[in-house]
């Protein structure tokens, strides 16, 4: 069965510090992987995605993620966190399927940024 695990429910980092958010997945085939961010009271915004090729993908807002198939892992990183990065971060996995896609989401990691 497909599943996505985000082991860290809540992370606090200081502004300017680096960030790493963990995501592990269980999937029956090569997955397509995503990181979304949800600011308070807002919808989800796509940060980045991995479909194939280079296992290090760049996203918006200075985020990047590394896919490691051997570890079934898709880690999100940012070298220097800004106060505006405080939000909920969701990892998601899905199939390539024309017509509709059922993305499976992790339970999210809440990021708090302290001055």
């Amino acid at each position, binding site marked *: 069965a497909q599943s996505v695990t985000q082991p860290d429910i809540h992370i606090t980092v200081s502004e300017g510090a680096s960030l790493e958010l963990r995501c592990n997945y269980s999937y029956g085939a090569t997955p397509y992987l995503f990181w979304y961010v949800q600011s308070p009271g807002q919808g989800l915004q796509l940060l980045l995605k991995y479909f194939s090729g280079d296992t290090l993908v760049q996203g918006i807002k200075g985020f990047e993620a590394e896919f490691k198939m051997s570890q079934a892992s898709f880690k999100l990183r940012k070298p220097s966190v800004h106060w505006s990065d405080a939000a909920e971060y969701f990892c998601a996995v899905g199939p*390539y399927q*024309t*017509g*509709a896609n059922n993305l499976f989401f992790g339970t999210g990691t809440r990021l708090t940024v302290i001055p």
Partner: protein
Amino acid sequence: DTAVSQTPKYLVTQMGNDKSIKCEQNLGHDTMYWYKQDSKKFLKIMFSYNNKELIINETVPNRFSPKSPDKAHLNLHINSLELGDSAVYFCASSQGTGSGANVLTFGAGSRLTVL
């Protein structure tokens, strides 16, 4: 111009009532979705339509009925509301084919509170 817009943003109602949430996308996407986010932030797909045709219908009580009058609109009607229906409901859309089929654009969400 909002890409995926949902109305209303907030909805407070009594148990047993019937309510609807509307969703419209102006992205020209072929596929639309309803996701439910519970109080623990867990996101789960409910329905998906591709060109007005129901594609994904997860295990959802039949009190929930989606309707897609055209491919730019997907509405959600809920009958006989129960306390457990309280959640944030997100509408999303994606392209029907190609790698864009995996990239979901979300609305801002509709927070439903059942008293």
